[in-house]
């Protein structure tokens, strides 16, 4: 017998952060929530540390990237019958204390996807210039394509219900960067998305997967292309006509 909610933590080379993240989660949420860490074939000793931390760990045989690890977590959650899933970053950016905020919003609005947003109420002045431009472009694209206003489509702090979870497990060619593209696709398929302001920290230690100009450019180009493909896929039947 397990809990209703599962926290999924995709993890790659986070030996310096993961211990603190798990400790924070256990301290704040206690035993009411299950945690699963998807170790994306880490090479820095994260795997050994996870064994010592006594947390459910799924170890991938080779590096699948963030999205592959995340989808593995979805598949685990779906197979084990969890009703809700929370994505949580292993780099220490997400705060365990904010989980309750997302759960409260879920109870209040019963949306399929709840996004913990850094910008729903406050500005986005902490991000780099390039990232600010990218995020605002993605927000505009979401508005144009779906008619919905999402302020922080790049946030990985998300709570999903079982129907959204099911959809995620069944997507073939799950996008390499599941951000604005996947949100657009979900909205176009009739899933409701609600955003809530949460506090977040800066990454504790190590480098982000989006660090460096080249990686950021690749990320933006991939995401724009992915959105374009989604528009092609659903045009004109589902644009502005959300049907599940």
């Amino acid at each position, binding site marked *: 017998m397990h809990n209703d909610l599962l926290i999924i933590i995709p993890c790659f080379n986070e030996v310096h952060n993961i211990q603190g993240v798990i400790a924070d989660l256990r301290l704040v949420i206690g035993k009411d929530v299950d945690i699963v860490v998807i170790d994306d074939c880490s090479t820095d000793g994260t795997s050994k540390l996870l064994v010592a931390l006594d947390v459910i760990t*799924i*170890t*991938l045989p080779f590096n*699948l990237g963030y999205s*592959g690890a995340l*989808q*593995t977590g979805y*598949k685990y959650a779906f197979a084990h019958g969890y009703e809700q899933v929370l994505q949580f970053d292993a780099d220490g950016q997400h705060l365990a204390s904010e989980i309750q905020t997302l759960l409260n919003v879920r109870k209040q609005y019963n949306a399929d996807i709840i996004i913990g947003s850094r910008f729903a109420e406050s500005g986005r002045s902490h991000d780099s210039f390039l990232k600010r431009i990218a995020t605002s472009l993605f927000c505009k694209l979401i508005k144009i394509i779906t008619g919905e206003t999402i302020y922080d489509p790049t946030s990985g702090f998300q709570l999903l219900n079982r129907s959204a979870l099911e959809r995620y497990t069944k997507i073939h*060619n799950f996008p390499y960067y599941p951000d604005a593209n996947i949100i657009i696709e979900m909205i176009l398929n009739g899933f409701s998305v609600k955003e809530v302001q949460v506090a977040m920290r800066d990454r504790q230690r190590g480098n982000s997967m989006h660090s460096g100009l080249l990686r950021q450019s690749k990320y933006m180009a991939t995401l724009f292309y992915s959105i374009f493909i989604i528009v092609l896929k659903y045009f004109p039947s589902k644009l502005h006509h959300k049907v599940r």
Partner: protein
Amino acid sequence: MYWNYLYFSVIGIFFVVYVFKKVKRNEFSEGRSIFWIAGGFTMLCLSLFPVIFIKLSLLLGIVYPPSLLFLLSIVFVVFVSFRQDQEISQLSERVNELAQRNALLEQAISAFRAEERLKQDNIGE
């Protein structure tokens, strides 16, 4: 100019024989070899019967007929290369799915073993 066609004929014959040999030794699947055999035969036919070739070139406005052979070869190679890339992306997706399934099964096995150990410990006590 006919030497060109002779070269192409010889290359075409060698190519077709080479592909057949590979298929015969089970080093190349029948399904995948069909394109190459078809390509090789086309090359062979066009080189053995240059009349078709010359007429086709004139029809397409190509002044130097062997250029048509190069054009067709390039189109064929690009087509095969595209198909291969498409198949690679499909295979990558399958490999990813297998890796995920493998990881999930490994986790299930270790959870099962841990549960069994716990049961045996309890019986022992």
